[in-house]
């Protein structure tokens, strides 16, 4: 079956015609041109396709686009400010947490969600939060450092705004 649906992605309503068997990930990438989320395993194990779905990170490869109608979806494109990088992105660069980069969008989406609910996570909490995001390059050490650094920077910038 095919259907015209409205997907709310990054605060914008997109009217798209989709097939019933298209995943949210496929529609984001192929029909909306939002290619930050990647297809890694296609089985919900690697986290490269993570998006914030209804307020929590989820694997968009295991969500049907058709069930996503009416749900608020936030992708890495929606997290990235227009004219500069998000502090999490900058921290990933500064700490050498990006090698091939394939897992990075999912890592940053998961980190964004973690730091929103827990601005000062312990190392164990970080490890648990990113346990569904696999990285085959870095060995995770730099990623964990980057997340701690991002937490510090976000706290500082929050302090400045007060």
């Amino acid at each position, binding site marked *: *079956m095919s*259907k015209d649906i409205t997907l709310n992605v990054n605060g914008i309503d997109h009217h798209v015609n989709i*097939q*019933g*068997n298209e*995943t949210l990930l496929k529609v984001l990438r192929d029909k909306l041109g939002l290619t930050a989320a990647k297809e890694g395993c*296609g*089985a*919900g*194990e690697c*986290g490269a396709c*993570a998006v914030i*779905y209804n307020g*929590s*990170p*989820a*694997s968009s*490869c*295991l*969500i*049907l686009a*058709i*069930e996503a109608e009416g749900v608020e979806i936030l992708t890495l494109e929606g997290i990235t400010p227009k004219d500069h990088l998000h502090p999490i992105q900058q921290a990933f660069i500064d700490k050498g947490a990006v090698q091939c980069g394939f897992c990075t969008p999912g890592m940053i989406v*998961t980190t964004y969600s973690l730091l929103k609910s827990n601005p000062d996570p312990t190392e164990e909490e970080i*490890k*648990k*939060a990113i*346990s*569904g*995001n696999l990285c085959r390059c870095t060995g995770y050490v730099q990623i964990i450092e980057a997340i701690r650094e991002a937490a510090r920077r976000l706290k500082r910038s929050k302090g400045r705004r007060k």
Partner: protein
Amino acid sequence: MENFEFISPITIKGAVNQYKKGANNYYLAGGTDLIVLMREGILVPEKIIDLKTAGLPSGIKKLKTEIRIGALATLSEIEHSSFIRKEIPFLAEAAGKLGSPLTRNRATIGGNLCNASPAADTATPLIAVEAKFILSDGKKERRVKAEEFFKGVKQTDLKKGELLKEIVIPRSAGKGIFYKKSRIKLVDLATVNMTVYRAKKKYRIVIGACHITPLRIRAAEEKLNKAKKIDLALINDAAALVIKTIKPISDMRGSAEYRKQLVKTHVTRLIGELAGVEV
């Protein structure tokens, strides 16, 4: 993934009617099992019936004598519910050890139970607290004991079209411990899992991933419940009865022998912890 018809029923009755219209229709909850199987071509459904619009009770309800968990409650909701963490912490722990956070944010407790894997992480705590499942065929409801819901590998007591609506847990001051062993600390499926529970000096022992269903070991429970005093020798006897009853298989997650050893070690440890006996 092959195409299919997607249906968003607005009542349970509507969902059941749609389901019954074909032989190859599937209910969709969180999708973290179903969509994987569809993507791999193992399942090629005619219709997908989305339960999330069908008016099933949602969330976790605290009543005077019981706790009710809607079948569509996600594992994250259960893991983080301050009420569940306080009252049934071993269920929160089991929920929090299933898959990854990304999976738990979508996967539902109803899906975990109806998928009926012998290693389902939420099964052993629910059997241990003698939970009941409310099943609905759209017209009538019936209650089935958690323990009797599981009939075999991926087989349940659900009749065609019937769905799991709600989980009812009697409130009690009992204490339980959940244990899960997997090859890696997080994300993996269980090599074995188990819950040992104690209320009013009575024990309940439930072992997962060691039989065609999660298994309550009554012989071992009785051994403990009949005794005037629980000591290490008695705990060892009870653990031996557990090992005698389970029938684990060898697979990629461990050999039958290894599973038996794991169960022996940890069931002994858990009973000891609840009984206040050093093991």
